[in-house]
């Protein structure tokens, strides 16, 4: 099959505006008579609110002030449940919890006024560790996946390896902080514009807040300067706040977080503690696997249940094992709520299993490559959920390619020799192999029932109406390419409508690596349907113009259709967890300095199978960016918590890799276009690249340190020091 547009590295559709500085982000919008809003937040992790005092020294009569009693509807963010209040009313459950809102036309005065609001509280004991939460049985959600019975297998094994792995919180650090503008007609309607991934989530949260019907809440996404999951659910909160202030003031209100507030108060990646027990035969065959996952959910459930689900369903890695048990729990603490972050629980689980495989190889005295070859999943094999891998996969081939591109075997030997001489630094190389499920888990897509519209345009092209946003990952361009291919028109004739709930149908949230695979499929189907209505024209443009001349308009809407052979049992947690999986192998090289104990990644290779690659340039960019974030997760990014909130909440104190800390990254695509449900057999790619770097780097560091594994992320020099000193 040859394609016109699919597989071509088209320029980013909105790229011109971005390189010239003319893109309009939320803070770039100007509204007449706009007020600036600020959030008053708690400074203790658990307490009863006694009184909120507005101290002298501020002209409070000029301010708009919102307290819980001003809320017209439901004081809770409607997400999976409706538990987290927009403003805490009686009880404070975490540091930085919103308790009141203020707004004024003078930006600087609001900033100052914030310090003149005092929240009198009666402090209550706080739970700040996962262990303590578990002891008290503060469990938000738990899952169990079991296949066979590992407990019967321990005494048959030659070697049992058991370890506990920990990962810290991770901050998204999108470069554009949370930003929202609201304008309302009090009593009637609400409109918000802002930086977000999921316009319909915001609508769903705001309608009950104001007791309005959904149509009376309009949500418009402005150009979004990065999200990575951080703008999945949090925008509900800030949008609600801006809208509440506007509702009371009767004027537009802008809320732009400064960096400190953004880092202090918004969600992060869930910290994890994962115990892995694995039984092997002498030759490396995996016979039993028992995994216990614990995540810190923070003070409110947010999306923790689904994050835990994804962690659970990625815990076994790309291996077959007849006897597997995964038990997982996410607990409630008095920390700032943790939330969605690229990978959504999978990076924590994959760090554990992949480190564990490398550790097991060491204990078995075989190469990390060989232990994988022994256990890889193949077409026709079953995962512990009972899901049979129907698509063609060839993990051996992918791993071999990664080994070859990185010169793995030669370097492994060279580095061991190098390390045998005492030098100012040591070198190591390590790998990881992993998968990532595309789209919502299990029956999630069925429940979403996404809709998408497409219409003919006067130019003889089409316009796509979808709620999925562009936030750097390439939605505009990829959906354009799919539409152009399916219609057989020039991509310049495809327009993408701005995500605006008053104009686009609900094609679901921009999350879960679902845009290309699930929403892209809707684009393809809509396009094919349009072609059918135009009677399969040879000249689409001409037919479209003619159709419009005769009929005025042609707009069709399609809805998600599950493929009939996918089944998921939410009760038993069995079945087809994901409609498609993407697969990958990473190889990382590191140097560990003997003076400062600092590990640096010096080279990185990633081989990726994500079905058909719609736009190789954008896809590579996604993977490279995910890898850089993964390097940060592995080595640098350390959220220091104080009373459950980020203490190092400044750009200068939260260390992400800069140009000088990011190695050359080599991305290589393997394409097995086989029957998977995506458009042109494309699968999702947004999240997967952050899954593999941490275990590959962790194993490379262990290699450099002569086989000493460090089970806790990030691998800060302070942690490496103890190991090096013991050499």
């Amino acid at each position, binding site marked *: 099959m040859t394609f016109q547009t699919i597989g071509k590295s088209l320029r980013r559709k909105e790229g011109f505006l971005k390189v010239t500085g003319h893109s309009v982000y939320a803070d770039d919008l100007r509204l007449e008579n706009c007020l600036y809003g600020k959030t008053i937040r708690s400074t203790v992790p658990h307490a009863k609110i006694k009184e909120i005092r507005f101290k002298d020294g501020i002209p409070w009569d000029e301010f708009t002030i919102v307290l819980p009693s001003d809320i017209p509807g439901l004081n809770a963010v409607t997400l999976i449940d409706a538990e987290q209040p927009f403003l805490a009313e009686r009880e404070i459950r975490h540091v930085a919890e919103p308790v009141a809102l203020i707004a004024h036309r003078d930006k600087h005065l609001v900033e100052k006024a914030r310090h003149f609001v005092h929240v009198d509280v009666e402090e209550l004991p706080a739970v700040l560790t996962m262990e303590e939460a578990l002891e008290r049985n503060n469990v938000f959600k738990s899952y169990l996946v079991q296949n066979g019975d590992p407990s019967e297998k321990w005494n048959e094994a030659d070697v049992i390896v058991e370890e506990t792995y920990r990962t810290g919180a991770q901050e998204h650090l999108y470069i554009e902080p949370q930003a929202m503008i609201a304008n309302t007609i009090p009593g009637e309607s609400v409109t918000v514009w802002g930086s977000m991934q999921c316009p319909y989530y915001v609508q769903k949260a705001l309608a009950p807040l104001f007791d309005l019907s959904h149509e009376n809440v309009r949500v418009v996404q402005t150009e979004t300067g990065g999200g990575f999951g951080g703008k999945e659910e949090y925008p509900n909160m800030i949008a609600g706040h801006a809208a509440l202030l506007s509702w009371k003031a009767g004027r537009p209100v802008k809320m732009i977080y400064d960096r400190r507030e953004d880092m202090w108060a918004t969600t992060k990646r869930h910290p994890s503690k994962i115990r892995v027990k694995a039984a092997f035969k002498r030759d490396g065959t995996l016979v039993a696997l028992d995994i216990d996952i614990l995540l810190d959910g923070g003070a409110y459930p947010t999306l923790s249940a689904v994050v835990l689900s994804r962690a659970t369903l990625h815990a076994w890695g790309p291996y077959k094992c007849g006897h597997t048990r995964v038990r997982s729990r996410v607990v409630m603490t008095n920390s700032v709520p943790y939330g969605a972050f690229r990978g959504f629980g999978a990076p924590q689980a994959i760090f554990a299993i992949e480190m564990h495989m490398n550790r097991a190889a060491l204990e078995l005295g075989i190469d990390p490559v060989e232990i994988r070859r022994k256990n890889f999943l193949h077409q026709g094999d079953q995962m512990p959920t009972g899901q049979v891998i129907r698509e063609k996969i060839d993990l051996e081939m992918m791993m071999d390619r990664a080994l070859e591109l990185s010169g793995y075997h030669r370097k492994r030997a060279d580095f061991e020799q190098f390390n045998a001489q005492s030098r100012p630094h040591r070198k190591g190389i390590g790998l990881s192999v992993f998968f990532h499920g595309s789209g919502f888990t299990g029956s999630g897509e069925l429940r979403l029932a996404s809709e998408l519209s497409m219409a003919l345009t006067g130019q003889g092209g089409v316009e796509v109406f979808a709620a999925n946003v562009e936030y750097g990952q390439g939605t505009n361009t990829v959906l354009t390419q799919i539409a152009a291919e399916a219609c057989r028109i020039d991509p310049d004739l495809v327009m993408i409508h701005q995500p605006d709930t008053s104009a686009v149908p609900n094609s679901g949230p921009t999350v879960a690596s679902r845009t290309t695979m699930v929403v892209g499929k809707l684009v393809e189907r809509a396009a094919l349907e349009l072609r059918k209505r135009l009677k399969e024209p040879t000249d689409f443009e001409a037919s479209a113009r003619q159709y419009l001349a005769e009929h005025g308009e042609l707009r069709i809407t399609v809805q998600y259709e599950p493929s009939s052979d996918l089944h998921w049992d939410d009760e038993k947690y069995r079945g087809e967890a994901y409609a498609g999986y993407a697969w990958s192998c990473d190889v990382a090289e590191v140097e560990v300095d003997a*003076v400062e104990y600092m590990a*640096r990644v010096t080279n990185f290779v990633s081989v990726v199978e994500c079905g058909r690659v719609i736009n190789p340039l954008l896809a590579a960019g996604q993977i490279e960016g995910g890898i850089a974030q993964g390097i940060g997760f592995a080595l*640098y990014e350390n959220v220091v918590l104080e009373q459950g909130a980020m203490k190092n909440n400044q750009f200068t104190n939260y*260390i992400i890799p*800069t140009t000088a800390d990011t190695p050359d990254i080599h991305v290589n695509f393997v394409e097995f276009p086989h029957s998977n449900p995506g458009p042109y057999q494309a699968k999702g790619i947004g999240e997967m690249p952050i899954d593999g770097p941490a275990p590959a780097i962790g194993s490379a560091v262990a290699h450099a340190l002569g086989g000493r594994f460090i089970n806790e992320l990030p691998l800060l020099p*302070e942690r490496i*020091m103890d190991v090096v000193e013991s050499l």
Partner: protein
Amino acid sequence: MSFQVVTPYSLDEALGALASGEKLVPLAGATDLMVYMEAGTLAPCRFLNLQELDELKPTLSVNGSLTLGAMTTYRDVRVSPIREQFPMLAWAAREVGALAIQSRGTWAGNVANASPAADGVPALMAYDAEIDLWSKKERRRVPLAKFYRGYKEMDRRPDELIAALHLPLPQPGWVDYYRKVGTRRFQAISKTLLAGRILLDADRAVRDIRMVFASIAPYTLRAVQTEAIVRGRELTPEVIEEAAQAIQDEIHPIDDIRSTETYRRRVTSNLVRDFLSL
């Protein structure tokens, strides 16, 4: 209640304003001051903008010693031929933030800001820099190594300006060493740092030495006791180890959000070993 600025156009005017008794805060490249303002840690005050003063203009003149005018920036040093004679100044300049900080941040600002984690100060101190402090009343010169007294405490009166920095020209034979241990390669605050210079005899005995450390004490520290241990001795492994141990008694590192006392202690000794094993 808000921030004010006076911009004098002559030195007399500037020193006169400083002598008036009102507290004025000198404003140079503003790379520290703007951060304090943004963070809300600086109380409203009146700034004395030094940008228009001819006498303080960026200069790098060699006349028996090197003189850096107070407004000399890191970039000025990085692009100047002076880096041949004072290599450590260029290395240090390269470590300060990134390019856009280096084009505005000044050496004098680094000195007066008195951060224990300053990267410019250790290099200046290792070169035996002296500071010109000018006020309406007097003009005096003090050695940088004696300038600090405690955390952000220094030998500068509120009516004094740092007018210039003087660095004696290095004799031939000195070898420079500068190593910053930060949280990442660039754009990092140091966890510990050693700016060292050493002059060896033909028989490898240490004729003279400077060892200056950052981030392990309340202010930039010249380790005179450890220097004394190696001065005059041959750099045998035993002497090096002695120095690496001795430094432990001179430093007072702490735990903070960037690192731990233990890490700073161990790595500081490693830096001493690395430096002396040249």
